[in-house]
């Protein structure tokens, strides 16, 4: 079944895209991540122009984050105050990101920077997560109590001024690292076409010491708004949001997420994290391969000026 996409201006197979959305939805439901870091590279491998893939990815993330946040809301796992401060930073970062995005595209280095960012961030996050979860798995086997949060510990982040109290998270921290974290991830989200959950979640746990039960909900809450904002800004500045493509991915994604969440409930936290880490590392390796191995075609073609 073929469908001509109005913005990407190409013919695609509906079933392939629904399947892609479902597969990523399954994984995101299982691991509690947005899945943007999977969907954008997959779309690019499927020959969707990178500009359209990144902008449309942001739109799809809105849908999957809404689904996710609604389920966390019921369990009280969303810190709206913390989410809002992260969001304020995120909107600034996202605006800068969309601008950098247009700039990089103009000088022809967009693909390279996007690939490098993916390799660096996915590689680092995946590696750290794998290391941590394997350690946790070992400890769990030897019968120790596993806790990610050690409240007594203080690092430099907690010595900064402008402190603010976040009741839901039982936190009293400076707003500076929260804003900076939000801005940094907002910028990456706009350039990479991801929600940034895979960076946000570990950063919140390890840097801000947010309790794990509110991390994912809060991260998803702010991702909804950053992704929504990115979608609108991309639509206005680059006109690369393909709503038909997004719709196919969303339908597949929302359906896949149900089954993924159920599958996820049967696994333990450390096991899930280890599996997610391996998945993240595989995507990073695949992208690193294209950076380091001699390409089949050295030349590439693009439209000059606009578009």
């Amino acid at each position, binding site marked *: 079944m073929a469908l*001509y996409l109005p913005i990407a201006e190409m013919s695609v197979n509906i079933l392939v895209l629904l399947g892609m959305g479902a597969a990523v939805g399954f994984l995101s439901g299982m691991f509690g991540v947005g899945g943007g870091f999977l969907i954008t590279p997959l779309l690019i491998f499927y020959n969707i122009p990178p500009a359209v893939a990144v902008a449309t990815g942001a739109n799809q993330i809105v849908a999957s984050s809404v689904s996710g946040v609604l389920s966390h809301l019921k369990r009280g796992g969303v810190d709206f105050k913390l989410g809002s401060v992260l969001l304020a930073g995120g909107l600034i970062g996202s605006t800068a990101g969309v601008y950098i995005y247009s700039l990089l595209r103009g000088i022809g280095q967009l693909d390279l920077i996007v690939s490098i960012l993916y390799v660096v961030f996915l590689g680092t996050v995946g590696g750290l997560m794998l290391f941590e979860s394997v350690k946790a798995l070992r400890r769990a086997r030897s019968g120790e109590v596993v806790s990610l949060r050690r409240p007594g510990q203080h690092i430099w982040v907690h010595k900064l001024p402008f402190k603010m109290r976040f009741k839901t998270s039982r936190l009293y921290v400076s707003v500076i690292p929260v804003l900076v974290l939000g801005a940094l991830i907002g910028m990456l989200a706009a350039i990479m076409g991801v929600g940034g959950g895979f960076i946000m979640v570990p950063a919140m746990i390890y840097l801000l010491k947010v309790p794990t039960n509110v991390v994912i909900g809060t991260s998803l809450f702010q991702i909804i708004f950053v992704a929504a904002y990115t979608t609108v800004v991309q639509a206005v500045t680059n006109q690369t949001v393909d709503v038909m493509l997004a719709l196919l991915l969303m339908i597949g994604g929302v359906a896949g997420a149900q089954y993924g969440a159920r599958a996820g409930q049967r696994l333990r936290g450390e096991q899930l994290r280890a599996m997610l880490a391996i998945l993240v590392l595989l995507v990073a390796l695949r992208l690193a391969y294209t950076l380091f191995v001699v390409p089949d075609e050295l030349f590439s*073609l693009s439209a000059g000026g606009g578009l």
Partner: protein
Amino acid sequence: MSPRRILLLLALGAGLAGGPALAQVSVTQDTAAPAGEPGEAAAANAAEQARVPERIEIGLSTQAIGITSDFTGQALTIFGAIDNVDPLVHRQGRYDIFVIIEGPRSELVTRRKARVFGIWMNVESQSFDNTPQSYLIASTRLARDITSLDTLARLSLGIGQIRVQPHPDRKQAREVEAFTAALRRLKQDAGLYQEFPGGVQFISQSLFRAEVALPANVPLGQHRARAYLFRNGELVGQTQAPLRIAKAGFEFAVSDFARNQSLYYGLSSVLLALFIGWLGRIVFKKD
């Protein structure tokens, strides 16, 4: 005289034996050949002038092609007619036709990767002004069998002959040539530059039909259909017609909305995402 020309002459001689148009045709051939008797040549010129010149016309079944959601490429047939056909020349198959569907022209950039600190990245680029985004050419037979390379180049008939205008910069000519070759190759790989030798067929003495396949990624905008008529390898007529390829129906509505009301388009996309996300949650809860 090249061996091929001798063969051609022999073939002509065999086919023409005793025919009334012998003088005219063989003479045309002779004027092309380096040696020829002066008297014969004069007679030829006279005959040439007496002949009513051919004219070529083409008609597209439609002035505009609308792209809707089920578009996966399309075969495009162009019908055409030749006026004042010389039946003998036709019978000998010495009329040749090129039909070209050329896409809108724009600036294109070719980039070349090289290794920098172990990473493959774009380091050099060459932009080309005013280059056709697509180029589909159909002909009665292989272009190089029809006429000389000079003529092909002059009329830009063939993928290798498309006139490109490298944007002037400090690069050496050989470098520019490499980028130009890459441009043609990449366009060909993408199915946007295609040749269809044998794509033009005569239906009758004066009617012909050209078929090209518009690829699924055909650029949108104002295309131009051009047709060239060759007689014995000489250009005797040409014509052109416009062809508009544009999104239609729902596809048009969406892209028009995205372009002209981009803020509302973005907001609607977000609303749609919010709705689908919420809907997914509802469906999930019922299970």
